[in-house]
């Protein structure tokens, strides 16, 4: 009995120092994340514009949805939720995220499996694979813009040389291929990141169970399906979430590679256009707020659907 008060004082102390250690991070998070986010949400319910932010007035949900009655039974919906361009951007973003993350996961997995093998010069190859990831997005986007150029680009040149296409393709300019161009660049750039995260997961798998599988006579494909994949799944899922979060707010690649086309405009690009180019700060804020909600919704749904182990309880 007498040990109890001592223990509880000790654990009170622990709790206090835990909060103390957390405090700087909480403050920082509040300043750099919660505060700007809160401001953005607030602006989305006002009529703020770039040059008169301080005089912003509350206007309710007008930026999101408003019915304007023209009289005589005529009328129309305005606002973000009624904006076809916005929904096109949402669709573009989701399409981009799903396709790019899927390809990156598959390619990343394959590369990770190769890099996990013992072979000569493995260290060098591992470093080399990372190069696309190390190049700043703006630089690689410009680089690819040149390679994909309709007249001077090397891609068209090679494809024509091989006789695969008759006419040069305006990869980034044509609405049919703009999304494909963006996807190619993003997959090229981000697959190494995926490979590295998955490789880390692969290296956690103990080597002896592969020997046990050999003695059990399990063929390679079944070992992969039944042993490797289940064991690296948690790592893969974490990598997918990271990438999906990234892909859903994609901006720089699209902005540099294919500016101003409906075919690739993403939510972030849409929000930026309104915030700064069209001087519709409140409307852009509304787009930003919706962007945040959509990303949160998709991420939470994914985490719940895959019953991901975020707290490390199961490992």
């Amino acid at each position: 009995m007498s040990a109890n008060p001592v223990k509880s004082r000790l654990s009170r102390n622990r709790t206090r120092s835990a909060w103390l250690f957390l405090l700087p991070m909480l403050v920082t998070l509040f300043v750099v994340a919660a505060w700007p986010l809160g401001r953005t949400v607030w602006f989305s319910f006002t009529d703020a514009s770039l040059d008169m932010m301080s005089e912003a007035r509350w206007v309710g949900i007008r930026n999101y949805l408003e019915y304007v009655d023209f009289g005589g039974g005529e009328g129309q919906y305005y606002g973000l939720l009624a904006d076809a361009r916005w929904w096109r951007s949402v669709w573009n973003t989701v399409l981009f995220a799903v396709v790019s993350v899927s390809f990156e996961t598959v390619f990343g997995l394959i590369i990770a499996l190769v890099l996990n093998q013992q072979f000569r010069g493995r260290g060098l190859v591992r470093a080399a694979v990372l190069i696309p990831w190390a190049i700043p997005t703006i630089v690689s986007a410009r680089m690819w813009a040149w390679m994909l150029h309709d007249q001077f680009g090397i891609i068209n040149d090679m494809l024509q040389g091989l006789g695969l296409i008759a006419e040069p393709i305006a990869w980034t300019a044509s609405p049919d291929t703009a999304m494909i161009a963006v996807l190619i660049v993003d997959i090229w750039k981000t697959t190494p990141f995926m490979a590295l995260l998955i490789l880390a997961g692969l290296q956690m798998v103990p080597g002896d169970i592969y020997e046990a599988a050999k003695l059990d006579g399990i063929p390679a494909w079944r070992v992969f399906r039944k042993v490797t994949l289940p064991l690296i799944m948690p790592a893969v899922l974490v990598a997918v979430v990271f990438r999906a979060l990234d892909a859903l707010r994609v901006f720089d690649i699209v902005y540099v590679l294919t500016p101003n086309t409906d075919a690739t405009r993403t939510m972030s690009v849409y929000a930026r256009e309104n915030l700064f180019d069209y001087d519709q700060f409140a409307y852009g804020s509304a787009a930003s707020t919706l962007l945040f909600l959509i990303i949160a919704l998709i991420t939470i749904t994914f985490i719940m659907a895959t019953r991901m182990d975020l707290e490390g309880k199961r490992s």
Partner: protein
Amino acid sequence: MATVELTNVSKSYGNVEVLRDINLSLEKGEFVVFVGPSGCGKSTLLRMIAGLEDISGGELRIDGKPMNDVLPAQRGIAMVFQSYALYPHMTVFENMAFGLEQARLSKPEIEARVREASKMLQIEALLDRKPKQLSGGQRQRVAIGRAITRDPRVFLFDEPLSNLDAALRVDTRLEIAGLGERLPDTTMIYVTHDQVEAMTLADRIVVLNGGIVEQVGTPMELYEKPASQFVAGFIGSPRMNFLTGPPAKAHGAAVYGIRPEHIALSRESGDWTGRVVLTERLGSDTFVHVDVEAVGAVNVRIEGRSEIHGGDTVHLTPDPASVHLFDNRGRPLAG
């Protein structure tokens, strides 16, 4: 009839030869222990028999058939790893059934085999658990159980007890000995660096040292007629005394070996006289370390308790019939 036969087997990693000229013939149902110091190549030899390592030279036969190029799963062997090597994401049942499913056994057959093995090892209550919900000893049983379900001709163990605590080690050792008796047709090959495990488990012991076979024999043969100074020192606890001074010269040998239990200790008289440096009391035995002038440090084992203390002067008499003489290359001298 021999189940496992090794003929001039060798193993090299690049230029480094880690095993050389291994010739062994293991009888069906025999319990054979490979013993030797760390790094002598025990695991490598076992893994070559399992098929996890290529055989660099020589031939391996199991039941008369050449096995050098046969896949591990087709050799009729099962192996228990030092680290258990259980599939972490599968239950105990799935761990045991995984290989059987691959071998296309029917569901009821798999059930029956797993039940039988788990009954034998008393792990029936654990079948639905994952490996990380088991204690070290329980994991080891599961690993052994998984091997049993394969119904192997040859059972391989690589230091299966080294991750267990002392008490559990003794229990599990007894169980493995029992397993050997319950599976009379299965040849057991057991790797350890612990000579006590080797002595208690083995029908025959293979002593390896530096990549070669030093001696093959029953535990008592190794104890009584070690084929080299290395074996004499390795087998038996506490270690044999090796004396190089006058006792060796008197017999025309380089080394004079006498086990601590073959020396009589007396307070009155004896061949050698010395001063007690240290006594170790184990209850059942007492080890007396004596510094004998002109002979060297001699360890003596006395049964039971003893009233001898450090600083006492004692007299020692080695049993002449139990003396082992070696030449300067560690080979035993006849006689």
